[in-house]
């Protein structure tokens, strides 16, 4: 199908964008890469009066390291981040998750902040933000505020961002010293939405995983020094607590099995990485 009619405004700065958001409120939609919004427009699931294009703003692009965090500007594409030379050193989790985000053609336009704001429960970047305890910086006419991932991601396609706010940065904490990271997911075809995606990390003896695709947002659990069959028991409890449901892609039972199986894969991977380092 074709999009319904809308006015289109191309802005040059984030100030212009938030002025317009203050004026139009929920009648406006922000577009940058458009890889989630354009399908929704084409299927007429959204009918904004105004589309505000921030893709050509001068102040929202780029990846910068500030202290112990990486700040990713709103118009930075997933491909920009994927090809950033410092990625594997500073954000190894994202380096392994990015190839699973859609296809390279959609990563060429899709932005990091766009994926977080779209808040699809199965998408990779929100699960990684939850695992690492990252933040999103929001801007309105009055100023900016930072919202923690746990408070930002509310549910299916729902975030704490208000209608008059623009997400200007995604903030991912840099890999901790000695910590190990892993990501894996199950999809029916490479690039499809994940049925279940799991991001994991181990630091000291603390294991932490984030599961996407089961509950209505990515959920995190943390355990102290988990080993042997206790890992499987913990994952089984987690799988049931997520209260997944049946849909066209998988049954709830299949999703629980994927949490148990992929969760074990991720945790084993983390242990292998850790033991390899100890043996060196």
């Amino acid at each position: 199908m074709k999009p319904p009619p809308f006015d289109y405004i191309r802005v040059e700065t984030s100030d212009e964008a938030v002025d317009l958001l203050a004026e139009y409120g929920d009648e406006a939609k922000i577009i940058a890469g458009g890889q989630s919004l354009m399908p929704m427009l084409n299927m007429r699931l959204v009918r904004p009066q105004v589309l505000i294009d921030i893709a050509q703003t001068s102040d929202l692009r780029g990846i910068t390291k500030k202290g112990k965090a990486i700040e990713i500007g709103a118009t930075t594409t997933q491909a920009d981040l994927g090809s950033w030379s410092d990625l594997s050193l500073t954000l190894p989790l994202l380096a392994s998750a990015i190839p699973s985000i859609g296809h390279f053609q959609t990563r060429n336009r899709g932005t990091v902040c766009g994926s977080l704001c779209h808040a699809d429960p199965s998408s990779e970047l929100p699960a990684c933000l939850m695992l690492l305890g990252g933040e999103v910086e929001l801007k309105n006419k009055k100023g900016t505020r930072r919202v923690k991932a746990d408070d930002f991601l509310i549910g299916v396609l729902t975030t704490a961002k208000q209608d008059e706010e623009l997400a200007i940065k995604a903030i991912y904490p840099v890999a901790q010293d000695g910590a190990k990271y892993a990501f894996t997911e199950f999809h029916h075809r490479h690039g499809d939405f994940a049925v279940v995606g799991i991001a994991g990390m181990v630091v000291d003896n603390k294991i932490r995983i984030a599961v996407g695709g089961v509950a209505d947002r990515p959920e995190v659990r943390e355990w102290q020094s988990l080993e042997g069959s206790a890992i499987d028991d913990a994952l089984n409890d987690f799988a049931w607590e997520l209260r997944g449901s049946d849909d066209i892609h998988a049954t709830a039972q299949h999703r629980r099995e994927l949490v148990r199986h992929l969760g074990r894969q991720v945790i084993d991977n983390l242990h292998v990485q850790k033991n390899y380092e100890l043996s060196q």
Partner: protein
Amino acid sequence: MKKFSHEERHQVKITLNGEAVEGMAEPRLLLTDFLRHEIGATGTHVGCEHGICGACTILVNGKAVRSCLMLAIQADGSEIDTIEGLADKDGNFNALQQAFHENFALQCGYCTPGFLMTLSEYLKSNPDPSIEEIKIALSGNICRCTGYHEIINAAFDAAKVMRDI
């Protein structure tokens, strides 16, 4: 800041396969439809219109993108490459097209422009791909005729030829 009303059509100028072209577009016009109906470049095909099938893949400033997930007005000032720009002026196939021809990598041909444009960018960034890498690179393009094996073989052969040129 520049505002474009939904009630009017606005001028969009692009460089298409190296030539400057222009046309009119209301804000909601998809880049696919602009190329086909406004410019008359019907080589780019419309499939699913929500970013799943890859038939409408073109290059925008050298990057493979889905032209159904982009507005014509967003492409103003861009350099765009489509299937029409692959063969030379005399109609001789480029290495990629030739490999598709020789490997029987198309039957009905509807998806072919998307596959060729996807591979046009991909084989530049990875000139020596494995079969597994090709499968992942092509996972965003759907073909209902070939069963994919011929397409994967063609991509593999084309990469070989392009490395030798």
